[in-house]
């Protein structure tokens, strides 16, 4: 009997202290910046003060002569570029010829201490020639020259793509209503509490060791080997426990390459810790996105088709941009039944810190637009927003128009839960002026169906080692960010072997000794690492059961593992301790070591680009936000939030609830205040485009006093593709919060704020419009003309397609005839 089919679990589903909880409470956990080595030197980076310039000359002589300076590096020391995605290898550890944003690293000093290194930075002389600055996507479209990069689609367009699943224009023309809305989502950043830090050293065996705060040690390992032109087997990356990631530590980073090179050149350990200001420049956070939705509905509130256009502000480098561009659309059809869907997306380069993945990666922006537009649709059709949504949630095991397979879904139950818990039916639309409720939903993926670089190997692998002392050690490349990945790993092993999580030692995130896991991103760890762990644990249990069965004189399938004992199902008194079972197993079969691995199922879509969006499972969330809006000041207070999250199964409910509340917190911050924004210095001060608020005080985030009570319902409908049915919780619950806030503000004071963040000044402006009889809306007025390519046309499953693309317009015309 598979452990997953057990009726009662001993570990899974029980609220427990996480395996690393004690070390954290003691302050004993070692983050990257807590590490030091004998003879260690310190590194500082010199960053560009210009948003866009050519480097004409760098003179390092004076810096090199400063007492205490051991090494000065510049772009010429790094001839090989890198990047997280194979199609965007556009960064150099130190910019060789061109700088593309204020903060782009151009030189590095390694010295005896940080003070000396900082002093030496001032002695580096650089001659720049300023170039025209491209400050936003509109400017990028209007100014193909100067090109920020010499690659990309054209001019300053990095990525440009279009898909059409079924004839959208025809469906819109046949709809009872077509709603057209534009929205804007401002960029914001991760603001993990821990600033990135790295320590590089050459170990006794002559190989490089980089110990660093990273979410993705495997991808970093590959890029380090590439940049340093060393065999990957001579490079070891250890991901220290991260002090929060949220996507900000996914990209391989300049400073990681620089200290590695310096350690190799000097033969001494070299450490760097970014300052908080530098973290704002390193960024890779939420893309600013302008969006336009044209959505058709029937008079009874069913979607007929949607045409979504997005325009992304990518910043100065590619980062995860190609994936981010896809994610501004591909998950749109997952939440509700949408028979036809057209999606056009364009990412531009601009002279700002690169944008990349932040919690929800590309999806929160269109989710905001989609869910606010649904609120407008419900109002126009005089339907309850909750009922409207309930009537069109995607069905279990169905295919979207874009060929994504929905597995389990608990969305309907999520909606029912938040409606009941918030007393929605008797309060929505009925509260006094100034108070309101808003509802929104979302869906998110449980891991990306394909790896960042093309390969056929497993996405996650686990190695398990049991020894006669009773120790259970599990090795996996997965990375602890604080989300609880080590606890998930220990939970699954412990449940299968009938032991306590405290018996499991997790060795994770070390490319030198752990099998590959692709990293902590895209909410993939519980599902992919978890399935790999489950396989490894069941294999070793099989070996133990055979050995024990011989001793007990019963068939192996009648051996039970429970509470640290191994015994006969029919006679629990007949058995042995877990340690004794290990000894029997080791005597019979040799050392007890197994591996497990996981690859996601093949996706049904066959068109080019069908690899982005498929996932082994999708999580769903519904959220109700209550707001109080002061019509005199526009001040917004949020007294309470209700959220229901379809998690499949909560492996450790304490952690699962923590992830959900944490997601709500971050979503509320994005809704109300968080923004990564820039301003122009006056012309006499260089006219440069600079970060407005590169400090934790000025980048506003919620404090304990601002944070409302969050009521959490975990909806447990186990998904067959997931370990013990457990789906993700780290990202999904953030997504419905922003639109629910916007919808609640409309219910409170009757104004639409169609952009994020929703600040008091915008609410006041909208109220003034309302009071003067104008459209009470603040948001983007129009969507620019973007030269999207001709869409790749794919027939939706319901219209007889095979999941492949139709190459010519004739194919589309032919299909029309058939449909007619």
């Amino acid at each position, binding site marked *: 009997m598979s452990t997953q089919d057990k009726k009662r679990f001993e570990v899974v589903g029980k609220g427990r202290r*996480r395996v690393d909880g004690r070390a954290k409470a003691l302050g004993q956990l070692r983050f990257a910046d807590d590490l030091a080595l004998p003879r260690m030197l310190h590194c500082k980076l010199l960053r560009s003060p210009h948003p866009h310039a050519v480097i004409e000359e760098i003179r390092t002589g004076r810096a090199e002569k400063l007492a205490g300076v051991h090494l000065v590096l510049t772009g010429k020391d790094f001839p090989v570029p890198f990047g997280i995605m194979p199609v965007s290898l556009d960064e150099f550890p130190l910019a060789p010829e061109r700088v593309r944003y204020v903060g782009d690293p151009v030189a590095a000093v390694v010295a005896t201490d940080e003070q000396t290194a900082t002093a030496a930075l001032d002695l580096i002389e650089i001659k720049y020639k300023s170039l025209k600055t491209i400050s936003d996507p509109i400017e990028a479209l209007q100014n193909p020259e100067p090109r920020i990069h010499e690659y990309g689609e054209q001019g300053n367009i990095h990525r440009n793509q279009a898909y059409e699943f079924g004839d959208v224009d025809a469906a819109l023309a046949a709809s009872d209503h077509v709603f057209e809305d534009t929205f804007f989502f401002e960029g914001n950043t991760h603001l993990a509490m821990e600033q990135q830090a790295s320590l590089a050293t050459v170990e006794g065996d002559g190989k490089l060791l980089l110990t660093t705060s990273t979410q993705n040690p495997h991808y970093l390992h590959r890029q380090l080997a590439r940049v340093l032109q060393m065999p990957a087997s001579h490079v070891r990356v250890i991901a220290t426990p991260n002090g929060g990631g949220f996507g900000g530590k996914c990209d391989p980073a300049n400073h990681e390459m620089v200290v590695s090179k310096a350690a190799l050149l000097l033969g001494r350990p070299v450490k760097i810790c970014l300052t908080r200001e530098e973290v704002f420049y390193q960024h890779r956070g939420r893309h600013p996105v302008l969006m336009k939705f044209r959505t058709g509905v029937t008079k009874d509130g069913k979607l007929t088709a949607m045409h979504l256009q997005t325009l992304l502000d990518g910043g100065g480098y590619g980062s995860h941009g190609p994936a981010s561009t896809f994610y501004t659309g591909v998950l749109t059809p997952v939440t509700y039944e949408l028979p036809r869907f057209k999606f056009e997306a364009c990412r531009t380069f601009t002279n700002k810190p690169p944008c990349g993945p932040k919690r929800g990666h590309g999806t929160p922006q269109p989710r905001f637009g989609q869910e606010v537009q649904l609120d407008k649709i419900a109002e126009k059709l005089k339907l309850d927003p909750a009922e409207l949504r309930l009537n069109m949630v995607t069905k279990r095991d169905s295919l979207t128009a874009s060929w994504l397979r929905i597995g389990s879904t608990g969305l309907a139950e999520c909606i029912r839960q938040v409606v009941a818990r918030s007393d929605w039916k008797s309060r929505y639309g009925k509260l006094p002026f100034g108070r309101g409720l808003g509802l929104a939903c979302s869906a998110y993926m449980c891991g990306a169906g394909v790896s960042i670089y093309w390969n056929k190997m497993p996405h996650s692998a686990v190695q398990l080692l049991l020894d006669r002392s009773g120790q259970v050690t599990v090795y996996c490349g997965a990375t602890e960010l604080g989300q609880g990945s080590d606890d998930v790993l220990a939970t699954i092993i412990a449940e299968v072997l009938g032991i306590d999580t405290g018996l499991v030692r997790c060795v994770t995130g070390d490319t030198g000794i752990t099998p590959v896991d692709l990293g902590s991103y895209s909410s993939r760890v519980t599902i992919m690492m978890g399935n790999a762990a489950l396989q490894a644990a069941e294999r070793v249990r099989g070996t133990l059961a055979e050995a024990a069965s011989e001793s007990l004189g019963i068939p192996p399938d009648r051996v039970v593992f429970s509470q640290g004992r191994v015994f006969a199902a029919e006679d629990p008194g007949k058995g042995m301790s877990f340690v004794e079972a290990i000894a029997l197993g080791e005597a019979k079969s040799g050392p007890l070591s197994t591996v497990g691995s996981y690859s996601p199922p093949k996706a049904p879509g066959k068109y080019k680009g069908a690899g982005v969006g498929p996932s082994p499972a999708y999580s769903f969330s519904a959220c109700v936000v209550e707001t109080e809006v002061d019509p005199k000041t526009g001040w917004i207070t949020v007294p309470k939030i209700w959220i229901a999250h379809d998690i499949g199964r909560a492996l450790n409910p304490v952690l699962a609830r923590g992830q959900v509340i944490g997601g709500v917190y971050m979503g509320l911050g994005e809704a109300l205040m968080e923004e990564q924004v820039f301003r122009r210095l006056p012309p006499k001060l260089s006219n440069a485009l600079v970060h407005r608020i590169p400090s934790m005080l000025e980048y506003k985030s919620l404090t304990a006093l601002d944070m409302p009570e969050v009521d959490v319902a975990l909806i447990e409908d186990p998904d067959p593709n997931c370990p013990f049915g457990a789906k993700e919780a780290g990202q999904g619950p953030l997504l419905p919060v922003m639109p629910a806030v916007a919808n609640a503000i409309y219910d409170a004071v009757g104004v639409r704020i169609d952009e994020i963040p929703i600040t008091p000044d915008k609410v006041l402006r909208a109220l003034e419009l309302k009071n003067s009889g104008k459209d009470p809306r603040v948001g983007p007025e129009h969507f620019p003309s973007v030269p999207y390519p001709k869409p790749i046309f794919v027939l939706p499953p319901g219209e007889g397609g095979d999941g492949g693309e139709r190459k010519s317009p004739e194919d589309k015309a032919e299909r029309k005839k058939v449909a007619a």
Partner: protein
Amino acid sequence: MAAVPDRVHLTYLVNGEESPVSFAPYKTLLEVLREDLNLTGTKHGCELGECGACAVLIDGEPQLSCLVLGLECEGKRIDTVEGLARGTELHPLQAAFADCGGSQCGYCTPGMLMTAKALLDRDLNVTREQIKEAISGNLCRCTGYQQIVDAIESAAAEMRGARK
């Protein structure tokens, strides 16, 4: 102008132990703790007094150690997260943080714990609002604060029980 010495030598009372230490005079208490006394439990998140990760107790009062010069603390009683547990037994606040989900990444935890300790040292009968007020200068990006408030509330109850 008097010459600035390369290093100063002085003694703190750190977690109840006399701790002589020698350091460059420009260093903050945070740097002295982390770099010269190897007490890396206290974290830094901003260097500017914005985040609360570096909070320690100086003579029982919560202070941001990144805004205090090491020089200013001669002879003072300094309590850090390393001194909270009694031997291997966790302080009730530590146990509650571990059990209630008060730590996710754990980076803000030391500062939160010391701030909470100062609060509970003054009064064990605290409301949730008072707890939120007390930790409002400590940023956390993971938890949404709710389980931190739960943990401090639970520790206060535990400590009230122990006192009876």
